[in-house]
C-alpha cells in the first residue's frame, strides 16, 4: 500500500512536470495525457528556496535579498565573467581573472597605455531573451540607466567614472570607457562583472517606458525577458513558486536544465530534509546545523571552499560608550568565543577570520592568523586597563538570521566571564536597518559579504555615511596614508604591495571596531546526481552550468 | 383623592399595545380597576387574553401604553423612580410568577429567599433570617433542609412553594399570583391553593389571582374578572358570574367546565 502510494505520487509528479513543460510551450492547458517516459535525460530541476524574489530589476529594487540576487544572476549577464577554478568539485570564482561574457570570450577588452581607457569588444550575433541583437548602444544605455536616478548607481567607481559622457560607442560592437584617472585600486572590472554590471536589452525595455518612468524600472521589476541571461521567468505564483525557463539563445550555450521550478519551503530543516530524501535537487539557504545534519546523507553533496567570502561582522560602535575606548573594544573582541561559535552554531560550516582580507584576494603572503582568539584573562586585563571591571553591552541583531542570533547569544554567554553583561537585542529587519542607518546601536552583529574581492574595495566599508560602516569608523590621516601607499606600491597581487595591505589589515584589527568574526561556508546542498556546484561572488547557485552527473 | 389613597392599586384606563403600524397588537384594552387590601380578585382568561400582561403592569415589569396605575394615590412611575420608594412599593405589592425559571440556577433557595428579607425588610441577623425562613417553610409545608438545595434539585411543587415563600416573607399588602398552579400536578395544586388562601386570610393581604383554570380561581377568590383578547368581558362576584354569566364567552367557559368536571391543561 505504501509503495503504491509513493509510486503513484512519482507518476503524478512526473506527469505534472510534463504537463507543466507542455503548458509552457502551448499556452492553453491541453489535457494531453502524455506518457511519462522521462527515462531520457533529465532536463528539469526542482529547487527548494526560502522565499521568492521581490524584484526582477536591481535598479528598481528596494530589497537586496538572496532570492533577488539569484534571480538577477539567472536572468541577466554583464560584459564580463570571473574565471573559475575547480576546487573539490566546486566551481569557485577566481576574483582576479576575467573572461568575456557578452564581450568577446578571449579578448574581452583592451586597456590603453595610460590605463585610462577601457575598450570592450562585444560578441557578434548575440540576441537578447526578447530576440533583439546586442549592440554597443545596449551597453551604453544600460550603464546610463544605472547612473540615473532610477538606477543603483555605480558609487564604487564614481571617483573615476560617474558620467554617461565618459562612454563612447565606437561601432555596433565596440564601446570605450574613458576614466578620469587610472590607478591600482581600479575596481571597474569587478563592478562591471558583478550584480551591478548587468547589460539590458534597450529596445525591449523602451517598449515599456512611460513619461513617468523613462527607464521602464516599474515594468522591469515585475517582468523578465529584457536581459541576456540564461533563464527567463515563465511563471510565478506569489508566495509559492517560480518557474524558470532556459534561454535557448543564451550566449554561453543553452543550459542543460531547461526548466527550474523553485518552490518556496520557508523552513530550513524541511528544505534540508527534502534534498536528502530526493524530493528536490537543490536546497538553498540552509542553516549550518541543517547542512551538518544531512552532510552524510548518501544523496547529498555540499560545497565547501577554502576561502569563503560571506562573513559575520561584529561592530562595536566607536561613538557609543563604552566602545569609544579602544581598549574596551579590544577587550570585547578577546571575549568573543570564536571557536565555540564555529563549533556550536555553525557545526564546523565556517572558518576563522583573520580580518577583512581573505585568501581569494590573492595578496601574496598575507597572514592567516585569526585576528582575535577567546582569551578571558587578556580581556579582563584590558578592561582593567580601561578602568572597568564590568560593562553592560546591548548587542543588536536582525531576527531573521537565526545563526547570527545564536552567535550573539553565545557571545553573551561567554563574554560574561570577562565582565561583559550582554543583552541580545533582536530586531525586525526593518528596525535593524533603521537603527543601523541611524547609528543608534551600541554594538551589532550582521551577516554580510564582500562581492568584490579587491583589498582596496574594503575601504568601502569604512567610508563615512556608508550603511556598511556600522562601526562608525572615521578615517584618520594615518588610515588615508596607509591606503595611498598601498595603492601606490603596485597591483594587489604583487609582492611589493602585500606588506602594505598586511599593515592595513593589522590596523583594522587593532582598531577593534568592525571585524568579521568568522567566514561562513556556502549554504546550499545539491543532489549527488548533479555536477558543477558553484561558489560565486553573490553566493548564488549558477543553474546555467549545472549538469546531470552522467 | 382621598378615595384613591385608600386603595393599594388604582388603575385608570390602563391598556397595553405592542408593536407599531400594521403589526400593532392590543394586549390589554384600557380598563379601570380598584384593588384594596381585603380584595380577593381572580382573573381568568385563555392564553393571550392579556391577563398576565395586566398582572405584570401592576408590578412595573411592563409599562402601560395608556392610562395610569397608582398605589395609594401615588403614580407607580413615581414609586419606581427612587430606590427607597421602589423598595417601599415592593414591600407593599409582591408578584409570584409561574415558577419554571424564576430562580437563579446557581443560587440556593436559602440565598434566594433571604434576599427580599434582607433588602426589603432590613433583617440583618443570620439567626433572625433563619427563624423567619423556617417559619415560612413551616407554613408552606416545606422541609427547611431543602433551603440548601439549588432549583434543579427539587420538584416543581417545591419550587413553586419556594417562589411563594420568597414573596410571602415580605408580608406584602397585596400579592399578585400569576398562573402559580398551572404547571403543578392536580394533587399539589390543591395543597398550594390552600396554603395561599390560608396565608392571605391570616395576614389580611389583598390577592390578585391570575389563572386560566376556572376551579382554582373560584376556589380562591371572591371576585372574578373574565378577560378575552385583552378585553374585560365580565366582572363581578364569583357567585354572580358563575350563576349569571352575561357574556357568551363566559357562558362557553362555564359550559366547558361543567361538561368535564375536572379538566386540567398542561402548559400554556
Amino acid at each position, binding site marked *: 500500500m505504501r509503495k503504491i502510494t509513493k509510486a503513484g505520487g512519482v507518476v503524478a509528479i512526473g506527469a505534472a512536470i510534463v504537463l507543466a513543460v507542455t503548458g509552457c510551450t502551448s499556452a492553453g492547458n491541453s489535457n494531453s495525457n502524455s506518457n511519462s517516459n522521462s527515462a531520457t535525460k533529465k532536463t528539469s530541476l526542482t529547487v527548494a528556496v526560502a522565499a521568492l524574489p521581490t524584484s526582477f530589476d536591481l535598479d528598481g529594487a528596494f530589497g537586496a535579498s538572496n532570492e533577488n540576487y539569484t534571480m538577477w544572476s539567472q536572468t541577466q549577464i554583464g560584459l564580463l565573467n570571473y574565471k573559475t577554478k575547480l576546487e573539490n568539485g566546486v566551481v569557485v570564482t577566481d576574483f582576479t581573472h576575467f573572461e568575456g561574457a557578452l564581450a568577446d570570450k578571449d579578448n574581452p577588452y583592451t586597456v590603453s597605455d595610460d590605463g585610462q581607457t577601457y575598450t570592450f569588444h562585444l560578441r557578434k550575433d548575440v540576441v537578447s531573451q526578447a530576440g533583439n541583437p546586442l549592440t554597443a548602444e545596449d551597453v551604453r544605455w544600460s550603464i546610463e540607466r544605472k547612473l540615473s536616478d532610477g538606477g543603483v548607481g555605480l558609487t564604487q567607481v564614481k571617483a573615476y567614472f560617474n558620467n554617461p559622457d565618459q562612454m563612447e560607442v565606437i561601432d555596433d560592437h565596440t564601446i570605450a570607457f574613458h576614466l578620469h584617472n587610472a590607478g591600482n585600486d581600479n575596481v571597474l572590472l569587478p563592478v562591471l562583472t558583478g550584480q551591478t554590471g548587468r547589460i539590458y536589452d534597450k529596445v525591449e525595455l523602451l517598449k515599456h517606458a512611460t513619461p513617468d518612468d523613462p527607464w521602464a524600472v516599474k515594468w522591469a521589476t515585475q517582468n523578465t525577458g529584457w536581459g541576456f541571461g540564461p533563464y527567463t521567468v515563465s511563471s510565478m505564483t506569489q508566495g509559492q513558486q517560480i518557474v524558470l525557463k532556459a534561454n535557448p539563445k543564451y550566449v554561453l550555450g543553452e543550459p542543460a536544465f531547461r526548466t527550474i521550478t523553485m518552490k518556496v519551503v520557508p*523552513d*530550513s*530543516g*524541511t528544505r*534540508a*530534509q527534502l534534498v536528502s530524501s530526493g524530493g528536490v535537487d537543490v536546497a538553498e539557504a540552509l*542553516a549550518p*546545523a*541543517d547542512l551538518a*545534519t544531512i552532510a552524510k546523507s548518501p544523496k547529498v553533496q555540499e560545497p565547501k571552499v577554502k576561502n569563503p567570502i560571506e562573513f559575520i561582522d561584529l561592530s562595536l560602535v566607536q561613538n557609543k560608550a563604552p566602545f569609544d575606548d579602544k581598549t574596551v573594544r579590544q577587550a570585547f573582541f578577546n571575549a568573543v568565543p570564536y571557536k*565555540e561559535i564555529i*563549533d*556550536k*552554531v555553525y*557545526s564546523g560550516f565556517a572558518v576563522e577570520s583573520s580580518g577583512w582580507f581573505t585568501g581569494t584576494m590573492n595578496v601574496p603572503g598575507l597572514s592567516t592568523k585569526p585576528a582575535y582568539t577567546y582569551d578571558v584573562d587578556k580581556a579582563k586585563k584590558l578592561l582593567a586597563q580601561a578602568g572597568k571591571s564590568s560593562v553592560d553591552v546591548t548587542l543588536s541583531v536582525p*531576527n531573521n538570521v*537565526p545563526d547570527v*542570533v*545564536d552567535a550573539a*547569544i553565545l557571545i*553573551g*554567554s*561567554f563574554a*560574561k566571564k570577562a565582565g561583559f553583561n550582554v*543583552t*541580545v*537585542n*533582536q*530586531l*525586525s529587519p526593518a528596525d*535593524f536597518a533603521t537603527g543601523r542607518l541611524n547609528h543608534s546601536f551600541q554594538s551589532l552583529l550582521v551577516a554580510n559579504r564582500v562581492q568584490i574581492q579587491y583589498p582596496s574595495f574594503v575601504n568601502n566599508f569604512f567610508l563615512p555615511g556608508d550603511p556598511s560602516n556600522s562601526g562608525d569608523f572615521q578615517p584618520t590621516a594615518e588610515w588615508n596614508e596607509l591606503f595611498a601607499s598601498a595603492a601606490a606600491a603596485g597591483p594587489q597581487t604583487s609582492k611589493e604591495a602585500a606588506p602594505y595591505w598586511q599593515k592595513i589589515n593589522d590596523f583594522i584589527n587593532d582598531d577593534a571596531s568592525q571585524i568579521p568574526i568568522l567566514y561562513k561556508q556556502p549554504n546550499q546542498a545539491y543532489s549527488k546526481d548533479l555536477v558543477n556546484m558553484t561558489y560565486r561572488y553573490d553566493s548564488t547557485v549558477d543553474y546555467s552550468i549545472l549538469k546531470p552527473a552522467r | 383623592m382621598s378615595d384613591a389613597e385608600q386603595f393599594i392599586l388604582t388603575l385608570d384606563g390602563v391598556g397595553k399595545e405592542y408593536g407599531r403600524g400594521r403589526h400593532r397588537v392590543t394586549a390589554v384594552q384600557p380598563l379601570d380597576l380598584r384593588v384594596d387590601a381585603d380584595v380577593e380578585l381572580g382573573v381568568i382568561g385563555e392564553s393571550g387574553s392579556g391577563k398576565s400582561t395586566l398582572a405584570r403592569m401592576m408590578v412595573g*415589569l411592563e409599562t402601560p401604553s395608556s392610562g395610569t396605575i397608582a398605589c395609594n394615590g401615588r403614580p407607580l412611575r413615581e414609586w419606581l423612580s427612587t430606590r427607597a420608594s*421602589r423598595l417601599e412599593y*415592593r414591600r407593599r405589592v409582591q408578584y409570584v*410568577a409561574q415558577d419554571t*425559571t*424564576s*430562580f*437563579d*440556577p*446557581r*443560587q*440556593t433557595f436559602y*440565598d*434566594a429567599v433571604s*434576599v*427580599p428579607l*434582607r*433588602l*426589603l*425588610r*432590613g*433583617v*440583618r441577623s443570620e439567626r433572625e433570617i433563619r427563624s423567619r425562613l423556617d417559619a415560612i417553610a413551616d407554613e408552606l409545608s416545606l422541609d427547611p433542609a431543602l433551603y*440548601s*438545595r439549588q432549583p*434543579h*434539585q427539587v420538584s416543581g411543587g417545591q419550587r413553586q412553594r419556594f*417562589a411563594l415563600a420568597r414573596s410571602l416573607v*415580605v408580608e406584602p399588602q397585596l400579592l399578585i399570583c400569576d398562573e402559580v398552579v398551572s404547571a403543578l400536578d392536580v394533587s399539589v395544586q390543591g395543597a398550594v391553593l390552600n396554603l395561599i388562601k390560608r396565608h392571605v386570610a391570616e395576614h389580611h393581604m389583598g390577592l390578585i389571582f391570575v389563572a386560566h383554570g376556572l376551579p382554582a380561581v373560584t376556589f380562591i377568590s371572591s371576585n372574578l374578572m373574565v378577560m378575552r383578547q385583552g378585553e374585560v368581558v365580565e366582572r363581578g362576584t364569583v357567585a354572580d358570574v358563575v350563576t349569571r354569566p352575561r357574556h357568551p364567552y363566559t357562558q362557553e367557559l362555564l359550559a366547558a367546565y361543567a361538561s368535564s368536571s375536572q379538566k386540567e391543561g398542561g402548559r400554556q
Partner: protein
Amino acid sequence: MSAQFPDQTAALAVAPRRTGGTIRAVFAFVPLALVVAIAVLAPVIAPYDPVTSVAASRLPPSPEHWFGTDAVGMDILSRTIYGARIAVQFGVIVAVLSTIGGVLIGTFIGLSESSSGVLGLLGRGLNQISSYLLAIPDVILGIVVVGIMGSSDFALTVAITLCLVQAPVKLTRVEVLRVRRESYLESAKLAGESSFRAALVHVMPNSIGPAMRNMPLIFGNCVIILASLGFIGIGVKAPTPEWGYMISSGLSSLVLGRWWPAVFPAAAVLLSVLAIAYSSRAIPRMWPLLAVRVKRWNPIGRKARA
C-alpha cells in the same frame, strides 16, 4: 427520561454541600499550584543556568542533559523549567486580566447595548471597537501596540491582553443577551435587588461559563502570541528562556530528526495549559461558594436599612 440524556444524579453528586464542595474545588487547583511551584522554585530545581552555554550544541537527551542541549549548547531541561516562569508570569496575568476585563466589558455591553442614551451609545461603541480589534490578526496588533509603547514587559502584557480580551468580551456578551431574558432577573427585581446588584449576582455568574471555558485558551494563545512576537523581534529578549521562542527556534530541526529542542518546551506548554484548564474549570463551581462567603462578610442588610 430516556437513557441517552445525561443523568441528573451526576449533577447532584457535585452539588455544593458546602465543605465537600470547597475541598473539591481546592483540590482542583493543585495542578495550577504545581505549575506555579515549578516557576517559583526554578532556581532550586534546574540543574544548570538557563542562559549559559554548558555543553556542545544539539546534544540528544542523555543522563547529563535529560532534555538534551539547544543550538548554542544550553541545557534544555533548565531552560524549560525556567520557561515556566515567563509563561506563568505572562499567561496567568494575561488570562486573569483579560477574563475579568472581558467579563466586565462583555456584561456591560450585553446589558447596555440595546438601551438608549449615553450608556447604550457607550456599549455599542465598545462592541464596535472590540469587533475591529478582533479582526486584526493578533501578531499585527501586538506589533503595533508594542511599537507604540516601546518594548517592555508591561507593553507586551498590554498588547497580548488587548488581543485576547476580545474573546471573553464577545462570549460574555452573547451569554448576557441570553441570561437577561431569564425570569429570575425579574424575580430579583421584585425582591428589591438593584440592577447593578442583579448584574453582579445573577447576570455575571450565569454568563461567565463560556468565558471561563475560554480561559485556558487564552493562556495557550498568550504563549503563542508571545512566541510570535519574539519571533518578529519584539517579544521577550533571547536568550531568556521562553517556551514559544524555544519551540519556534527548535522547529526547523524537527523534520531532520532533532526533535528535542522543540518537543520538550511544546510538551511544557501542553501540560501547563492542561493544568490551567483543569483548574479553571473549577472556577465556575467555586463561584457560588465564593459568593456565599462574600455575602456573609458583607451583609446586604446594611444597605437595605439606608
